[in-house]
């Protein structure tokens, strides 16, 4: 009697477990559906606009025709500019915080500031950049000002993911290295950083992708409404994909819808290419890693 009661209890437990797993599977599929839907929708509406002319020509007819070449180039420049400032600075800051900084009030305050920076709305960065870079430092509305503004926005992401990646390297490796006569910096450079590179790259690409897609921070600092030529110095303003999208979606009457969605598609592909490049570098680094 008792035996069968026990058995039916186990059967019931198993049934509940099965139900639970099915539920989790359904939920995880559900999270992917909107993403796929969005992508299909964009491709469906945007693909007709894509042509060689679209990605290589200047806009014409008040942006209602022609291409978006200057916006593509602009976003490329802004992303590179952001990387130049934020990647070395972010990694250096993370190394300091993770490996050198003593645990005290000051470093706790720095950490808190970084976390809070990540939560600030992007338009606030835009205003800050306008005040500091465009007006006070007199860089004007330029690629330089916009890149610096985007860098400040990107830094917290790079710092916190890099710090996380550095901390994931086991402490025992550091002790062994020091016991073999390594200085702290030798240990970091030869042992810790190579181990952390895949994690750091993830942070870098997350940060830069966000920078590539943001509108608000470049709105006041470097983005041009309409500039049918390529920028020829970092102190030039530039068109950029996200801002261009904003402009043609809200500011230009009689805009063919496929040009809007074509622009979105190009931006999406731009971010996708960044992702692919980093994934390749990361998997190479992982394959080289002996652990």
């Amino acid at each position, binding site marked *: 009697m008792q035996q069968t009661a026990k058995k039916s209890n186990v059967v019931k437990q198993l049934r509940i477990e099965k139900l639970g797993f099915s539920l989790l599977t359904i939920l995880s599929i559900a999270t992917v559906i909107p993403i796929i839907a969005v992508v299909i929708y964009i491709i469906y509406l945007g693909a007709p606009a894509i042509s060689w002319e679209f990605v290589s020509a200047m806009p014409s007819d008040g942006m209602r025709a022609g291409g978006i070449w200057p916006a593509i180039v602009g976003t490329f420049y802004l992303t590179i500019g952001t990387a130049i400032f934020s990647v070395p600075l972010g990694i250096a800051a993370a190394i300091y915080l993770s490996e050198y900084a003593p645990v005290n009030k000051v470093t706790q305050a720095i950490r808190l500031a970084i976390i809070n920076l990540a939560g600030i709305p992007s338009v606030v960065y835009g205003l800050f950049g306008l005040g500091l870079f465009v007006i006070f430092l007199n860089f004007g509305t330029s690629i330089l000002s916009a890149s610096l503004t985007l860098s400040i926005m990107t830094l917290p992401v790079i710092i916190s993911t890099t710090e996380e990646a550095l901390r994931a390297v086991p402490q025992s490796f550091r002790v*062994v290295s020091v016991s*073999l006569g390594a200085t702290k910096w030798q240990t970091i450079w030869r042992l810790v950083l190579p181990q952390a590179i895949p994690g750091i790259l993830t942070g870098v690409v997350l940060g830069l992708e966000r920078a590539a897609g943001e509108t608000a921070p470049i709105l006041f600092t470097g983005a041009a409404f309409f500039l049918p030529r390529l920028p020829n110095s970092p102190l030039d303003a530039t068109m950029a994909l996200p801002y261009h999208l904003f402009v043609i979606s809200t500011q230009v009457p009689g805009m063919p819808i496929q040009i809007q969605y074509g622009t979105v598609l190009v931006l999406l592909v731009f971010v996708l290419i960044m992702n692919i490049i980093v994934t390749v570098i990361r998997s190479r680094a992982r394959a080289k890693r002996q652990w």
Partner: protein
Amino acid sequence: MDKIIVENLSITYSDGVESLFDINLRIPINQITALIGPSGGGKSTLLRVLNRLNDLADVSKTTGKVLIDGIDVLDPTLDVIALRRKVGIVFSRPLPLPLSIYQNVSYGLELMGEKRKIVLDNAVERALRLAELWDELKERLHDPANSISGGQQQRLCLARTLSLQPEIIMLDEPTSALDPVSTAKIETSLIELKKDFTVIIAPHNTQQAGRIADQVAFFLQGKLIEFSSAEEIFTRPKDKKTQDYISGKFG
């Protein structure tokens, strides 16, 4: 001849736990000195003082003197890097670095700026031979270090320490994670190595001290209870606590 002289050494960690209390010890050259006693007795702390690895720990106060070849190890102006090359350590778990077998052994030399391939090749071979690993691994030097067995990994760690041609080799329970065969190999190596090096080991049990040690120091709760030749300690211990420990009454 005494290689290491420890005088009135006391160490307090920041959390207030007194880890070593008034230790006096003379460790002879070219012998195996075993530090025995229950865990938490201060053996690891003593080892980590000798090459200043304790600098990485949260030590609040160190008093007394530690002399190696007459040089004060605790001197804040001491070149700790040179000290660590002279006083090597092998840890209780095999801890190969995430590099190849070859790179593990050449790591210490490369830190010193050695780039000549022929010098590195020779040093790697020499160290691996000393750790009796060369014949097993010579065909696969560029494999990842974690692809070999645990016993081999620990001997690789020994080879890595030997590559710097230290004068003193310290081993902190080096065989605690190893099977009996690998343990025997390490022990044989150590007996061979004492001809050229001064060996200090915190063995993972008393029997191991009995098998290989020339001198034995018994530590209990941060105090050095007894220190004499292995024969004395195991046959005629002077202190009741030593006797109780080696006969297995506690520990």
